[in-house]
Structure formats: structure tokens, C-alpha cells
């Protein structure tokens, strides 16, 4: 991957994140100018930079997204839930693609299809706002499909099969028009093989394009075939099949009636004319069977190659599907009589001028009504609005081939502009779109008014000041840190050297000088270490950023109203810690949303506000970063937790009786305990909180829960600010040095051999009225045993309580940079890693829990 592409991937990730956050702000507060501008700028920048690379699917998609956002920014389009959904979907898709680019240097194979689909929907959404001319025609997926002109090339029998599949089995017919370009054979494409792969293939026609060349000039390698096919397979599957040639193929939904294309010699038999005159009455009376009988009789007596015969066959086929589409039958009947059949002219039958309604038209028209109802305000703005509304309505009319309406609307727009009064256009709208549901204008109307209230200053994206931030690959920072770590170690060798200078070479002066140099280097090394730690610091907001979306999705899914409050996002911690926080926090927040926050009606019944609150709070306490997740839900049902724990044999009844509510609440961290009534989609599979605890503990942190029934639950995570430097106490045993993480050590004591009691094979001693079990490190490490009069005991605080560990000798405290075990040592149990000491010795750091 080129450096440029690298940079693009990094930048795109940030832009998408920014856009996502802005979008969620916008959803809560549609008038937030800053959010609109941030969102627009992010998407705009992404579009710009993506154009540097060969990712047409991505660039086109972002472009469509930007178009839509532009309407929002201009106040033409209100921020609706659907709009946010659509944009979020786009951001998700883009994020996946960027991940794919990061991994493979290219978009996934199916990108083009997804892109096209989403672009159509974005465009449709935009057309709903009524701003663009060209895009309306691009929304074929939502408008009644226009008849594809190639359908006639398919064999009639095949079309009938597809027609029946659509009407009898309710299948969706997908049309594929695949016109490979001339050079496709040179790219090793085999269009016929691709067509062979079309699932549920119902019809296929292969045509030679262009005039037949003289055989002498025939070039077998210039593709001159075009392929058209029908299938009932899911559209996505077909898009996937044709993903590599998406620029040469069009995949469209086909309306079944468009398949009924009577073809053949136009000569009309007199018997057919009689049929065409007699049958409409029968159709009107619903005597379809009779019509079919007559059609079949007539069919037997006329030229089967004629157009009339074809129409009769279609008529019979239509009636045989058991449909009641009298309108279609009428058309076919008149086609038998020689009338031209044009399905796309369907609209004109419904009335002389009015444009037919559909959900989309309804929505578009309602929007336009809303815009026209806005106060006039600034003259230039007003004129822009009128022109835009006029254009939109004309487009809608044109899309439905209501030519008269188009002209009238254009005229009305002109006079509205002239008079600076929306009156004429409002009137035209009433005439041609009168059938569109009035009531639906209320909602979008209000939305439009809202949107109009936002006076958005046009933003020049170039205004975004370039911050002086350097983007550096994390690996480089890690390497720098490792080097500094080694420098610290190397520096620690100097005091040894100083001692040697004096002891071996007898030069006290030399020793002192080395000592002085050492203190300078020491100071610098420490400063460097702090500086590099700072580079690795990230704000907690990096983790918090994903929660607004999560909460939004969860609350939609569960029908709960949840407000998320984020506090202390600026608190910083080491990158590793921040990254490690993500999954546990998601677990906790999901649990809160799923089990904690009650349904709105339950909350109301309990005298709480309908919407629950989940609060994420980060803060720094000493060298710990604390994250609290608080909800105001029902709290942990300690009685049920205890009951469950008893039922599963996790605790014994005596322990259950002694348990304080706080202890009981913390049982939820026990593996295999879930308090959910039903296993829901979100959490409550019985694995969850114990995973949280394990991963937090592995990072040297702790987690605790406190809860008050009916009031809420707080989960508190405490993690070290940085994992890079570890504080250990060194101990000596059998001549070797070992390190024990200092946060595990409760205290160090010396115990008289006589005070050690042996219970069966286990040893223990009494520490201030508590029996503390004893282990011997020598025994744990399979080293020869040694007994002394006064044993040095390290009292460790472990999850199951205190444990005393007998070692040979305590040594000093030390800050070390822990290196994980490498190579063949990886599998070694009982050791967390190693660290190099100043004198070149290796310190093995014990993983005490594993050892016991």
C-alpha cells in the first residue's frame, strides 16, 4: 500500500468517526449548525480525498451522501429519523470499505452493487426534498419501473413463465441487461459463463450488436454480443454475481405487465376486431373464464404468428393466473383488436391531467407544500425556493409522463416568480397533485419549518484550519518507547560502572565523575520516558465516541427511551488502556440498557421519568483512570442473584446468608450467572460480566458494582493510566531475582517458623486474627526447599482472599518495562514477562495467579 493510500485510510477513519458523531448530535438537535457543518465538511473532505484513488464506488457514494447533506445544510430538507438512518448506513458501509482497503488495498468485490443501491436511496431521499432534476429519474428503484425496451427480445414463452412466476407465486422479476464492452474478452471476461451462473434464470436472449461486418473483416475478439436475462433470484445475489462488470450491466426490477408484449405481424383478422368489441363488456362483468374460452377458440382459428394471436395468448395466460386485473385484460383485449399496447402510459387512464399518487409522490408533494407555506423572507432565497419547488413538481409530473401537467407547472412557477407570490404554484399543486394526501403534509411541514429556522451560513470547507497534528503509525511510537526503555536499562548500568571504577581500578574521582554524568543522563531518560508516555495518551472520549450510536440502536430495538450522558471524555490514558476499555464498556452499557433501564411504561408506573439515563463518567484518581457507568434503572435484584447463584451451586447457603447486598451485587461478575428473564439479543447470555472482570483484571485494573434497588446501578472500573511501566517488588529466591506486581502485595511480614501451622499438607499462619494460607515460592517453582527460623512472607491480595508467599529475601521496589515472553518461552506458565535490569540481569515477573 502506498504511503498516500495509508494516509487516506487513516484520515478516512477519522472523518467517518467525526461524521457519525455529528450525525447523532444532529438527530437530537436538528438545528445544531455546528453539527451540520461538521458533518458536511467531513463527508466533503472524504469525497475530495477519495477521488485521488481508483475507488469509483466509494467516491460516487460519498458524493450522493454529500448532495443529500447539502440539502440539509441549505434548509431544504428536514433532519428526519430516516435521513439519519440512511446516512448512518452509508457511514457503516464506508467504514467497512475503508477496513477492506486497509486490509487488501482495495474495496470489497461487491462494493459497486451496494454503492449503486445506496446511491439510489440517497437520491430518492433527496428527491423527496425536491431539489434536483436529474436524480429523480435515477430513483427507478422506487418509482414504478419503466418498461425496459429489451424485453421484446426475450422469447414469448420465457416471458410468460416469468409473468406467471410473478403473478402466481408473487416473485419479484429482476431484469438484467448486460452489454459487455468491446474489449471485454481481453480482460478474460466470459459474459456467457457469467450468464450461466445467473440463479433462477427464466429467460435469456443474446443479440448481436451492430451491423454484420464483412466476414473478411470479422474480428472474433471484439465482443459484439449483448445479453438480456430475467431471473427471480434476490437482487443482491445478482448484483453480487455481476459485481466485476457492474459498469456494463443494469439490474432492474421488472413490473410483470411489462412482460406482456404482444408481437408479430400487425395484420388484424376481422374475427379479432369482433372479439375486441365484444369482450370489454365481459371483462367488466367479471366473466374472465368466458373471455378466456373465447380467446382460446379464436386463437385456434387465426394465424399464430400475428400480433393479435400473441395478445390472445397473453390474455389467456393472464386470466389463468387467477388475477382480477381487469385493467390489464382490457388493454390486452384492445391489443387483440390491433390497438397499440403501452404499459408505461398507465397513468393517463386515471384522469386527464392529475399526476398519479404513490407514497413517494405523496412525500415529495407534502414537502413542497411545506416549503411553499414558509414565510417569504429574503427575496433571493424566496425565488430560489419557488424555482426549486417548481422544478421538483415538474420532475414528478415528467416522471409520470403527465406532459400537460409539466407545462402548466412550469408556467405557474414563472408567474409565481414574477409576482413574488407562491399563489400560482400553490394552485397548480392543488390541481395536479390534489390526490396526494393532505394530512401527510403536517409532519414534514413542521420539519421543513424547523429546517428553515436554521439560518446556515454557507461554509467554505477550506476554512477548516489545518491543525498542526502529525499522524504517526503506532508501531513507530512503540519502537521509540522500546528504545527509550532500553536506554533506561543501559543507563542503570552506570552506577555499577562507577562502583567498579572505585573498587577495581581504585579511582574514586573517576567514580564520582561517572556518577555525575549518570545523574544527567538519568534526568534526560526520565524526561524522555514521560514524553513518550504522553504521546501514547489518548482521551477517553475515543472510547466514548461509539456509545451514542450504540445507545441509539439499543433503544430503538428495545423500545426504551435512553439518554446517554458522557462526562470527563478529556481524561487521558495510555492507548493500550483506552483500546482495552472498549469491549468491557460496551458489555456494561448494554447490560445497563438491557437489564437496568426499564420500559417507559414501567418507569412511569414507578414514578420515574419515562426516559432512563445512562451516565458514563471518566476521571483520573492518582495513577488510575476511573470509569463509572451509572444507570437509573431497576438496580441489581440481589435476592434473585443470590437465588441463581445458589441454584447453580456457585455459593453455599451459609455464605448466602452472610452476604451483604454489596457482595451479592458483585456476584454478577461470577462466571455463568445471568439475571435476565429471557435471553435477549443484546446481553444476558450468562457470559458477560465475568468477561468484563477478567479483561479489566488482566490489565491490572479492578471492577466493582454498587446498586440500589429501584434507583440504579453503578459499575466502576479502575485501570492504571499506563500499562507500559510496571511497579514491581523484587524478591530473591534460590539465587534468582523475581518481580511481583506491587499492586498485588498487601504487606510484607516476617513469620517465626513456630507460628506456621500445618493443616494436613497445607501451611498457614495467623495474621491479625485471620488465617492466611501459606505457599512456598521454592516449592511452586520446583526448587530445592529451605527452611529458616524467620520466614520472609509476602502477603498477596488475590481475588479469593489473602495468600502468604514465602520467599528467600525481599529486595527493592523497581519501575520496569515489562516485555512479554517471546519465542519458545511463550507457553511458560506462571510468568507475566521479563525485564532487563541495569546490571544486565534478567528479572522474571511472576504471574502469581497462574502459579498458585
Amino acid at each position: 500500500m502506498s504511503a498516500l493510500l495509508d494516509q487516506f485510510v487513516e484520515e478516512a477513519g477519522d472523518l467517518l468517526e467525526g461524521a457519525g458523531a455529528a450525525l447523532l448530535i444532529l438527530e437530537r438537535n436538528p438545528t445544531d449548525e455546528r453539527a451540520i457543518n461538521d458533518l458536511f465538511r467531513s463527508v466533503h473532505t472524504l469525497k475530495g480525498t477519495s477521488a485521488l484513488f481508483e475507488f469509483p464506488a466509494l467516491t460516487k457514494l460519498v458524493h450522493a451522501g454529500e448532495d443529500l447533506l447539502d440539502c440539509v445544510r441549505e434548509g431544504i430538507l428536514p433532519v428526519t429519523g430516516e435521513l439519519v438512518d440512511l446516512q448512518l448506513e452509508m457511514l457503516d458501509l464506508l467504514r467497512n470499505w475503508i477496513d477492506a482497503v486497509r486490509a487488501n488495498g482495495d474495496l470489497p468485490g461487491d462494493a459497486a452493487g451496494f454503492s449503486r443501491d445506496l446511491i439510489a436511496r440517497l437520491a430518492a431521499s433527496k428527491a423527496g426534498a425536491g431539489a434536483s432534476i436529474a436524480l429523480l429519474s435515477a430513483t427507478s428503484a422506487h418509482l414504478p419501473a419503466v418498461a425496459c425496451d429489451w424485453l421484446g427480445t426475450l422469447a414469448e414463452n420465457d416471458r410468460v413463465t416469468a409473468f406467471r412466476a410473478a403473478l402466481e407465486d408473487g416473485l419479484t422479476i429482476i431484469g438484467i441487461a448486460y452489454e459487455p464492452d468491446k474489449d471485454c474478452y481481453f480482460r478474460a471476461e466470459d459474459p456467457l459463463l457469467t450468464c450461466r451462473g445467473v440463479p433462477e434464470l427464466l429467460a435469456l436472449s443474446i443479440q448481436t450488436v451492430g451491423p454484420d461486418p464483412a466476414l473478411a473483416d470479422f474480428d472474433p475478439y471484439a465482443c459484439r454480443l449483448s445479453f438480456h436475462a430475467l431471473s427471480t433470484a434476490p437482487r443482491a445475489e445478482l448484483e453480487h454475481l455481476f459485481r466485476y462488470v457492474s459498469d456494463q450491466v443494469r439490474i432492474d426490477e421488472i413490473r410483470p405487465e411489462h412482460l406482456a408484449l404482444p408481437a408479430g405481424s400487425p395484420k388484424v383478422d376481422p374475427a379479432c376486431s369482433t372479439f375486441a368489441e365484444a369482450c370489454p363488456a365481459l371483462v367488466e362483468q367479471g366473466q374472465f373464464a368466458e373471455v378466456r374460452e373465447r380467446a382460446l377458440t379464436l386463437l385456434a382459428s387465426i394465424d399464430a404468428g400475428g400480433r393479435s394471436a400473441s395478445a390472445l395468448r397473453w390474455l389467456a395466460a393472464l386470466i389463468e393466473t387467477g388475477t382480477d386485473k381487469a385493467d390489464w385484460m382490457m388493454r390486452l383485449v384492445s391489443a387483440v383488436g390491433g390497438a397499440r399496447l403501452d404499459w408505461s402510459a398507465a397513468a393517463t387512464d386515471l384522469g386527464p391531467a392529475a399526476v398519479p399518487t404513490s407514497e413517494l409522490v405523496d412525500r415529495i408533494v407534502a414537502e413542497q407544500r411545506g416549503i411553499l407555506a414558509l414565510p417569504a423572507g429574503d427575496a433571493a432565497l424566496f425565488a430560489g425556493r419557488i424555482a426549486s419547488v417548481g422544478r421538483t413538481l415538474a420532475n414528478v409530473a415528467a416522471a409520470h409522463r403527465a406532459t400537460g401537467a409539466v407545462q402548466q407547472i412550469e408556467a405557474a412557477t414563472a408567474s409565481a416568480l414574477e409576482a413574488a407570490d407562491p399563489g400560482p404554484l400553490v394552485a397548480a399543486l392543488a390541481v395536479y397533485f390534489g390526490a396526494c394526501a393532505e394530512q401527510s403534509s403536517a409532519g414534514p411541514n413542521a420539519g421543513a419549518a424547523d429546517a428553515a429556522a436554521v439560518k446556515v451560513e454557507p461554509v467554505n470547507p477550506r476554512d477548516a484550519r489545518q491543525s498542526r497534528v502529525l499522524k504517526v503509525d503506532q508501531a513507530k511510537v512503540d519502537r521509540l518507547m522500546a528504545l527509550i526503555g532500553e536506554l533506561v536499562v543501559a543507563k542503570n548500568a552506570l552506577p555499577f560502572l562507577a562502583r567498579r571504577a572505585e573498587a577495581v581500578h581504585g579511582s574514586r574521582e573517576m567514580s564520582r565523575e561517572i556518577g555525575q554524568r549518570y545523574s544527567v543522563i538519568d534526568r534526560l531518560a526520565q524526561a524522555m520516558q514521560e514524553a513518550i508516555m504522553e504521546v501514547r495518551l489518548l482521551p477517553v472520549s475515543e472510547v466514548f465516541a461509539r456509545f451514542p450510536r450504540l445507545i441509539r440502536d439499543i433503544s430503538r430495538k428495545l423500545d426504551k427511551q435512553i439518554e446517554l450522558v458522557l462526562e470527563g471524555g478529556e481524561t487521558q490514558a495510555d492507548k493500550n488502556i483506552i483500546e482495552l476499555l472498549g469491549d468491557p464498556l460496551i458489555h456494561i452499557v448494554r447490560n445497563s440498557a438491557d437489564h437496568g433501564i426499564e420500559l417507559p411504561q414501567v418507569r412511569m408506573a414507578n414514578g420515574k421519568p419515562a426516559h432512563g439515563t445512562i451516565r458514563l463518567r471518566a476521571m483520573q484518581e492518582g495513577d488510575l483512570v476511573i470509569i463509572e457507568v451509572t444507570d437509573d434503572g431497576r438496580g441489581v435484584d440481589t435476592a434473585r442473584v443470590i437465588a441463581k447463584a445458589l441454584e447453580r451451586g456457585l455459593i453455599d447457603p451459609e455464605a448466602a446468608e452472610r452476604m451483604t447486598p454489596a457482595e451479592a451485587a458483585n456476584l454478577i461478575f461470577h462466571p455463568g450467572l445471568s439475571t435476565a428473564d429471557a435471553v435477549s439479543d443484546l446481553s444476558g447470555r450468562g457470559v458477560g460480566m465475568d468477561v468484563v472482570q477478567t479483561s479489566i483484571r488482566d490489565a491490572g485494573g479492578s471492577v466493582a458494582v454498587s446498586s440500589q434497588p429501584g434507583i440504579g446501578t453503578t459499575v466502576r472500573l479502575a485501570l492504571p493510566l499506563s500499562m507500559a511501566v510496571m511497579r514491581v517488588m523484587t524478591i530473591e529466591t534460590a539465587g534468582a531475582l523475581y518481580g511481583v506486581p506491587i499492586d498485588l502485595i498487601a504487606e510484607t511480614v516476617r513469620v517465626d517458623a513456630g507460628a506456621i501451622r500445618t493443616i494436613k499438607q497445607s501451611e498457614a499462619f495467623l495474621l491479625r486474627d485471620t488465617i492466611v494460607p501459606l505457599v512456598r515460592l521454592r516449592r511452586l517453582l520446583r526448587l530445592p526447599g529451605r527452611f529458616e527460623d524467620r520466614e520472609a512472607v509476602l502477603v498477596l491480595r488475590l481475588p479469593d482472599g489473602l495468600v502468604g508467599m514465602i520467599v528467600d529475601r525481599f529486595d527493592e521496589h523497581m519501575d520496569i518495562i515489562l516485555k512479554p515472553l517471546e519465542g519458545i518461552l511463550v507457553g511458560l506458565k506462571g510468568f507475566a514477562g521479563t525485564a532487563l535490569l541495569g546490571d544486565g540481569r534478567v528479572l522474571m515477573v511472576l504471574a502469581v495467579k497462574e502459579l498458585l
Partner: protein
Amino acid sequence: MPLEFRDDEVRLVGTCGADEALELSDWLSNPGVPKVDLAACTNLHPALLQTLLAFKPAIAVEPTDPFLVRWILPLLAPAAGVTRSSE
């Protein structure tokens, strides 16, 4: 070999790819009444198909591959019909 030439007849065997198209069109350009045997053809590259469509040789033996029978033979069928009626 996907193409097997015999006097005035060519047999297309197995997967016939684009590489064979030039050979086929050269052969079909020869004077005479060429005939084609598609019985053992399992995949016909469009480069070959358009060559057959352009030179319109008689189909001596129809294909057996269902896809070719269903969708491709009708395109070549007029020729096949002639052959059959002359037999």
C-alpha cells in the same frame, strides 16, 4: 484440444475458450460448407459463439449441455433445422 478438425467438420470439445476463436474463424473462412459438432462442448466462449453466429456454419450435431441446448441452440437453430431436414 478443444477444437478437432475433420475435413469439413469441426468438433468442439469440453471448455472452449476465447483462445480458440481465431483458429475457428480462420477455419470457417475456408471455402466449402463447414459443419460444426457441438455434442461434447460444455462451455462455449462468446468469442466462439459470435464467430459461429457470423459464419453461420451448419450444426451437424447439436449440443448436449442443457444450458447450450436451452439458450444457445435456438440462436444457431435455423442452420440446425436445415441440416436436419436434409438428413
